[in-house]
């Protein structure tokens, strides 16, 4: 009898060990798969920005977008990852030696099935943040100046915001109950207002504004490409939002049997599925209602998701639909306000990400008021003031470095290309390749 019990005990221990290994492998695979999904966001931004450019600038816009991705990833390895873990309470920085670029954890390490995939998911958040900014400045920014700006945004600015507001120890969370499940503030608001700071110094494209202040529409050469790109961004954002959830059952998990948010509050992928789909739909319908324009409709889809991102873990889906619809309806009027200030945002980045990011934060402060921001007793709860404070912090973390760094670059002659190059086109003056060597001409159908 005792032998049977011992044998069964051994079998149970083996099964438990096997289950633990399976959980670890699935958790690692979960975050690993978010990475290629988020790279689809970049395929989307690539198509979006190239389509929104005039044909004479198409490849230059693509190069800029690809380089932002290529430079932000190593910058996040060297600097960004450490900032996130070291600075949730601001200065002085805490101990985050495991995140330093020479740490053993920052490379292949058997038995560590989490560091690389977590770093990878965050690095893609960083690259996404930089990509948001890149579209606003197409057709007139210098490549090197752009890369410097993108690196600062992707490896520093948004990361500080994330340390403060997208971390269970972040001071915005612990002190003010700030809640931002899907990073509407720490990614979208920061990126949108960073773009605004740069646009003020960069100036509009030649021909965008008339002497009387009225704006001319500068159409992209391929709207189908732009619209398809926006749909790809939506696909990729499923990976982004998936990576915002914390897998259960590991030593670093919040829960043994449930997904958690970055803050340690419970959620699940079902909640995200409901709310992301409803938000996508609401944003599209809202933008269609106001504009009937396919560009704004797809931007509305993105705006809908951003407008509800802060509370995707707890929104009632029909309410998420309505908030998203309001976000979609706000887009074109908000973009018009920007144009009245002679800001030439070529793709609506400031509007879609900055304005709607703030809108989304405040919406959650109204509809999500009272939710505990963390686990435990006596924690701060979500409230409108806390969300507003978080919004202001994100605006400043984006706008101030965007404005200051672009001003320094402008004084150094590294911000804007010359007028002659802008009029001739960036591709003929700067790119050793031709986008359409045979031109774009209609083909004849086969004769019957």
């Amino acid at each position, binding site marked *: 009898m005792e032998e049977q019990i011992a044998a069964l005990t051994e079998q149970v221990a083996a099964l438990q060990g096997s289950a633990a290994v399976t959980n670890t492998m699935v958790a690692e695979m979960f975050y690993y798969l978010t990475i290629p999904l988020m790279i689809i966001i970049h395929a989307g931004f690539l198509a979006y920005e190239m389509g929104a450019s005039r044909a004479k600038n198409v490849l230059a816009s693509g190069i800029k977008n690809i380089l932002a991705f290529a430079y932000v990833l190593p910058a996040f390895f060297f600097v960004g990852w450490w900032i996130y873990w070291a600075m949730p309470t601001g200065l002085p920085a805490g101990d985050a030696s495991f995140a330093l670029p020479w740490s053993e954890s920052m490379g292949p390490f058997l038995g560590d099935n989490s560091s690389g995939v977590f770093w990878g998911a965050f690095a893609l958040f960083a690259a996404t943040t930089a990509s948001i900014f890149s579209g606003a400045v197409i057709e007139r920014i210098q490549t090197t100046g752009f890369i410097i700006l993108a690196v600062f945004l992707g490896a520093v600015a948004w990361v500080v915001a994330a340390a403060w507001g997208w971390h269970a120890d972040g001071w915005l969370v612990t002190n003010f109950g700030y809640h931002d499940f899907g990073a509407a503030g720490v990614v979208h608001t920061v990126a949108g207002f960073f773009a605004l700071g740069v646009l003020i110094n960069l100036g509009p494209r030649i021909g965008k504004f008339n002497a009387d202040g009225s704006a001319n529409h500068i159409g992209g050469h391929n709207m189908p490409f732009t619209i398809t790109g926006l749909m790809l961004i939506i696909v990729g954002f499923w990976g982004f939002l998936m990576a915002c959830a914390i897998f259960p059952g590991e030593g670093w998990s919040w829960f043994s049997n449930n997904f958690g948010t970055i803050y340690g509050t*419970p959620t699940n992928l079902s909640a995200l599925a409901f709310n992301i789909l409803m938000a996508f739909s609401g944003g599209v*319908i809202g933008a*269609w209602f106001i504009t009937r324009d396919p560009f704004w409709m797809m931007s509305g889809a993105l705006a809908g998701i951003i407008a509800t991102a802060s509370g995707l873990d707890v929104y009632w889906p*029909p309410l998420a*639909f*309505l908030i998203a619809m309001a976000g979609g309806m706000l887009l074109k009027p908000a973009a018009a306000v920007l144009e009245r200030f002679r800001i030439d945002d070529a793709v609506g980045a400031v509007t879609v990400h900055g304005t709607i990011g703030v809108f989304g934060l405040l919406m959650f402060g109204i509809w*999500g008021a*009272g939710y505990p921001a963390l686990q435990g*007793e006596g924690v701060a709860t979500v409230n409108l003031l806390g969300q507003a404070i978080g919004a202001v912090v994100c605006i400043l973390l984006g706008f101030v470095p965007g404005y200051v760094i672009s001003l320094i670059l402008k004084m150094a002659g590294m911000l804007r290309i010359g007028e002659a190059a802008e009029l001739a086109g960036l591709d003929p003056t700067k790119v050793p390749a031709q986008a359409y060597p045979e031109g774009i001409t209609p083909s004849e159908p086969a004769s019957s």
Partner: protein
Amino acid sequence: MGSSIENWDGVTGAIFMGAGGGMPAVWVWLAIAACVVPLIFGAIADRKTR
């Protein structure tokens, strides 16, 4: 509407705002209306451009 949760410890079941009350049903009907109204305006626009 606001939070249906006071403390996350041991929480199970519905956690969306207003869970257990009557407001979620109201939002459902408002969302349905929000789908229908743009369609009506769309139909009017379609008639004008026929």
